[in-house]
């Protein structure tokens, strides 16, 4: 059987090559994802491995979750240093420092962090920083930057540059350029190192430090020293080993990376899933074409099991080869992913390419399992071939219409129910439930698709008839094998459905954001980060607000700072906002009770949902945990229905700063003073904002446009990545057309003989492809709009459904063009077919 199976593979090599390509691409995406993220991880790990080398202990503020935490008292440094067995106690202050180049453009950032560190002479050698040129900062006006930033900003020792700090933008002289160990590039992060006191001032950390690196004398037991330190540490401070600190640093990064990894793997999974449709279709066609051969095997005594095994073995052979190639191609995909991310402004520099055994194992397993699983149905069908088919033309009995309707409806219903359950009930891992539900829905629709394929081609293809016989033949050919057409279209459906879901989400998000801003916003101007930024590692300098408030033309400025908190009742992490200034006048909070104006130290305004969860009302206490692990006890002075800013707890900034060391603002809203016209005073405000190169001033309409752009940027990256699944689906169309044309050799020969020109043949094949593609596109749009609408409705929270019809129609047109593209080679081959070969009668 193995020999027959291998011969079967070889006999259909072109056909199987197309299928194999689908597997190669799917596996390549999956393994490419691993290579991509592993490579990033590896370069990060190698950077971090020697970071804390030589340091025995760290004293630091506690951080339970999120960002910010608290700093520790500077007085602790001396107490640690005074311990008899401590050789070195080097304090460090950290913060965010955005470097600015000569043209006034921010260097780096836009995704990767912009670190700021402090330098103390006794800490030399305890950090991985090495001076490559110049010297450490020795005065309040000096700064050391990393080699990557120096290259990016064309900075040399002795240059004078601006640095945006929490306290404002200041000017420093470059005293040196540092590298991070041997690495020139810390994954795109930039670095600014200041003299210790300067750093304390710059990061708004007077009298406190972030960590103390401790080295004990040779022979001393670090554990004992740790115990001594722990004895006098206050609450919210802890002592950990050097390894622990490294693990925490790596762990945080790994968490962020695993998020990217998951998203990419999901897209890879979609690609594989689409590939499975292709594989199934190809094997079904191959089985149909070999019906006589299979019947003969049955007639001479092969059992059903043997026939099934033979087809499965073929699948195994194909899956094995294709997966191996796919894993190799994954390296190219990893490079492509890097380019795609860079193209969308998320530059991720990596050093070297990492191919872990895990990547190979996962890639091979996924490829082989999916190939075999997809071939299983055709294999079973092959086994049902009656031996008599060897002698007569009888097809294996097709599944009955009733069974198909029942199965398709049941599967679709089940899938959609799962989606709804995941979205609205949110049990278990809701995202996974929704994802699996979507896949099941796709499968269900693909079972139903053959039932409507003919009707679709007849109605949608009606205009083709007006094109005369060429269009008519294209239409008939598309209908002729409804199941093949449907399977091919289904592969495309999946990709189109997913991009449609994104489009619906995108359209709704943009419409909701625009509506919310227009309705709720009372500010004249808004200042926000000019580029994409992680709220935990970038933000606006608080000095900006102070500067703005000094302007005569400015009436009021309200600013907000993001933080995370753990909500008591359900333990989930939520966003809180520390606000300063008359936020309630700038942004309309729909209040259910109380007022934002009453916000002051020790009080909170909370969302109605939180009020329900805590079961509290005005005047009651709520107790929530902040990043450092400490608890805030707050008196509720107001309850709002919907938060235009997305936070569910609002406190005043003083309270925020008491509990959180994060010192950068998320936004500042500006109302001009009475008697001034907003657009007239804009230049004055613009001038202040210009002093903060990472800040961007907008009016409400510009803010809406910017926000829409941001939504587009992120979602378009997803669409581009999903393009991969679409490419595989188009390969499916190529494959199906190639097979159909091979089957129709005689007909093409005949029409050529009676006078059809080559270009007419090409047109005929192209239109057939377009019909299949548009069928897939329409199915995809329908499924996508339904799923997308469910998603938007489930989100709720002022999210209104807006279906971007124009965009969806563009997708449909693109699908049709994809069909034309897919038909390119088959159409040429069809047109070049030798007429005589086709009509020869044997």
């Amino acid at each position, binding site marked *: 059987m193995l020999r027959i199976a291998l011969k079967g593979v070889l006999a259909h090599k072109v056909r199987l090559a197309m299928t194999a390509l689908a597997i190669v691409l799917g596996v390549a995406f999956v393994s490419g994802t691993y290579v991509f993220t592993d490579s990033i991880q590896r370069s990060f790990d190698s950077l971090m491995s020697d970071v804390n080398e030589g340091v025995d202990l760290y004293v630091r503020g506690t951080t339970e979750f999120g960002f910010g935490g608290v700093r520790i008292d500077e007085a602790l440094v001396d107490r640690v240093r005074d311990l008899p067995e401590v050789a070195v106690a080097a304090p460090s202050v950290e913060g965010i420092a955005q470097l600015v180049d000569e043209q006034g453009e921010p260097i780096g950032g836009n995704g990767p962090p912009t670190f700021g560190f402090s330098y103390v002479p006794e800490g030399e050698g305890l950090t991985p920083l090495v001076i490559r040129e110049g010297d450490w900062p020795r005065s309040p006006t000096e700064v050391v930057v990393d080699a990557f930033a120096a290259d990016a900003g064309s900075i040399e020792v002795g240059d004078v540059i601006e640095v945006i700090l929490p306290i404002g933008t200041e000017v420093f002289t470059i005293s040196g350029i540092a590298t991070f160990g041997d690495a020139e590039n810390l994954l795109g992060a930039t670095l600014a190192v200041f003299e210790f006191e300067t750093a304390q001032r710059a990061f708004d950390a007077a009298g406190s430090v972030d960590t103390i690196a401790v080295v004990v004398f040779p022979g001393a037991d670090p554990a004992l020293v740790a115990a001594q330190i722990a004895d006098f540490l206050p609450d919210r401070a802890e002592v950990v080993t050097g390894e622990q600190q490294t693990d925490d640093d790596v762990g945080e990064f790994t968490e962020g990376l695993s998020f990217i990894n998951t998203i990419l793997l999901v897209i890879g999974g979609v690609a594989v899933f689409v590939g499975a449709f292709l594989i199934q279709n190809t094997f079904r066609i191959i089985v149909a074409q070999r019906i006589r051969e299979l019947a003969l095997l049955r007639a001479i005594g092969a059992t059903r099991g043997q026939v099934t095994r033979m087809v499965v073995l073929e699948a195994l052979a194909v899956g094995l080869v294709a997966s191996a190639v796919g894993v190799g191609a994954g390296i190219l995909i990893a490079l492509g992913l890097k380019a795609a991310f860079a193209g969308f402004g998320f530059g991720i520099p990596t050093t070297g390419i990492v191919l872990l055994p895990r990547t190979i194992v996962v890639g091979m397993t996924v490829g082989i399992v999916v190939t075999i699983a997809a071939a299983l149905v055709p294999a079973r069908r092959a086994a049902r071939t009656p031996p008599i088919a060897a002698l007569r033309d009888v097809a294996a009995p097709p599944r009955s219409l009733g069974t198909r309707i029942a199965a398709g409806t049941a599967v679709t219903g089940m899938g959609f129910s799962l989606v709804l359950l995941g979205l609205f009930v949110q049990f278990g891992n809701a995202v996974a439930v929704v994802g699996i539900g979507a896949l099941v829905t796709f499968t269900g629709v693909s079972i139903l698709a053959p039932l409507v394929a003919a009707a679709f081609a007849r109605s949608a293809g009606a205009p083709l008839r007006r094109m*005369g*016989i*060429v269009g*008519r*033949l294209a239409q*008939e*050919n598309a*209908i*002729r094998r409804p199941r093949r057409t449907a399977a091919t279209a289904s592969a495309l459906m999946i990709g189109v459905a997913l991009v449609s879901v994104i489009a619906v989400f995108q359209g709704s998000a943009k419409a909701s954001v625009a509506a919310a801003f227009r309705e709720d916003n009372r500010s004249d101007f808004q200042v926000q980060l000019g580029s994409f930024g992680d709220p935990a590692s970038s933000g606006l300098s608080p000095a900006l607000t102070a500067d703005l408030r000094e302007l005569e033309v400015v009436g009021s400025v309200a600013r907000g700072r993001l933080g995370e908190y753990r909500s008591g009742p359900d333990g989930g992490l939520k966003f809180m906002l520390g606000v300063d200034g008359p936020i309630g006048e700038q942004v309309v909070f729909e209040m259910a009770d109380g007022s934002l104006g009453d916000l002051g130290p020790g009080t909170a305004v909370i969302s109605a949902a939180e009020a329900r969860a805590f079961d509290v009302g005005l005047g009651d206490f709520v107790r929530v945990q902040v990043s450092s692990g400490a608890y805030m006890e707050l008196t509720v002075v107001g309850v709002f229905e919907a938060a235009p800013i997305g936070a569910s707890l609002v406190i005043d900034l003083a309270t925020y700063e008491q509990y959180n060391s994060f010192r950068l603002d998320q936004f500042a809203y500006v109302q001009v003073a009475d008697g001034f016209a907003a657009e007239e005073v804009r230049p004055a405000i613009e001038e202040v904002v210009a002093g903060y190169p990472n800040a961007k001033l907008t009016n409400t309409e510009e803010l809406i446009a910017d926000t829409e752009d941001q939504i587009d940027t992120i979602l378009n990256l997803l669409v581009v990545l999903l393009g991969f699944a679409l490419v595989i689906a188009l390969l499916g169309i190529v494959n199906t057309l190639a097979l159909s044309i091979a089957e129709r050799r*005689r*007909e093409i020969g*005949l*029409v*050529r*003989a*009676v*006078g*059809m*020109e*080559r270009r*007419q043949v090409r047109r005929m094949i192209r239109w057939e492809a377009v019909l299949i593609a548009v069928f897939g596109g329409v199915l995809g749009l329908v499924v996508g709009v339904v799923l997308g609408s469910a998603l938007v409705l489930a989100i709720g929270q002022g999210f209104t459904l807006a279906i971007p019809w124009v965009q969806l129609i563009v997708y449909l047109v693109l699908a049709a063009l994809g069909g034309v593209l897919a038909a390119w080679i088959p159409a040429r081959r069809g047109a070049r077919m030798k*007429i*005589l070969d086709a*009509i020869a*009668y044997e």
Partner: protein
Amino acid sequence: MNVENAAARVENASKVYGAGDTEVTALDGLTVAFERGRFSAIMGPSGSGKSTLLHCLAGLDYLTSGDAFIGDIRLGDLSERELTLLRRKKVGFVFQAFNLIPTLDAAENITLPVAIAGETPDKDWYETVVETMRLGDRLDHRPSELSGGQQQRVAAARALVSRPEIIFADEPSGNLDSKSGEELLGFMRKAVDEFGQTIVMVTHDPRAAAWADRVVFLADGRGDGELASPTSDQILEFLKSMG
């Protein structure tokens, strides 16, 4: 025969397939002409080059050397596209089998060449042809719903409907039972007699050839005599004498 009046002819035609060891000479310096308005038959043993001759005359294949003409158009001068247009306008075909597009009904199959040209068929002529081929009640049937004889009659109707200068038929009754075969040949005869259609038919069946005005014999790619308006017995005798 008057070469000027030929609907199709070959001069000194040779056709060689393959090369070296596998070289086969299908036509070997053959010169033959087929008159307008007549029903000609080509006979000869299997492999004697009958189909090859037909294909080269009909613009489906090129000669290796020599010339093929439809009317006074030399086919060797035409580009692939011009040949296609020539087949569409001036030539009709009836093959032994697989003559029809399974997805089109009989009416659509009949008008296929006209439709490919983007034209509408001449209605009177179409009805005349349909009636001649006795297909009036079968027009909306697909090929799979037609008998073999009906299918071949649809093919013949298709060949006639574009009023080609010449129709080539390669064993059109070869796959039919004798009754259907006789019927088809009768209709073809009628097309020649009533409409002045020129038909060249390849056959190996003496009874089929007996419907023709003239029978040309081939052997090993060369002419091997001919008979005018023979009976099937005369043909049989001639074949026997060829050995």
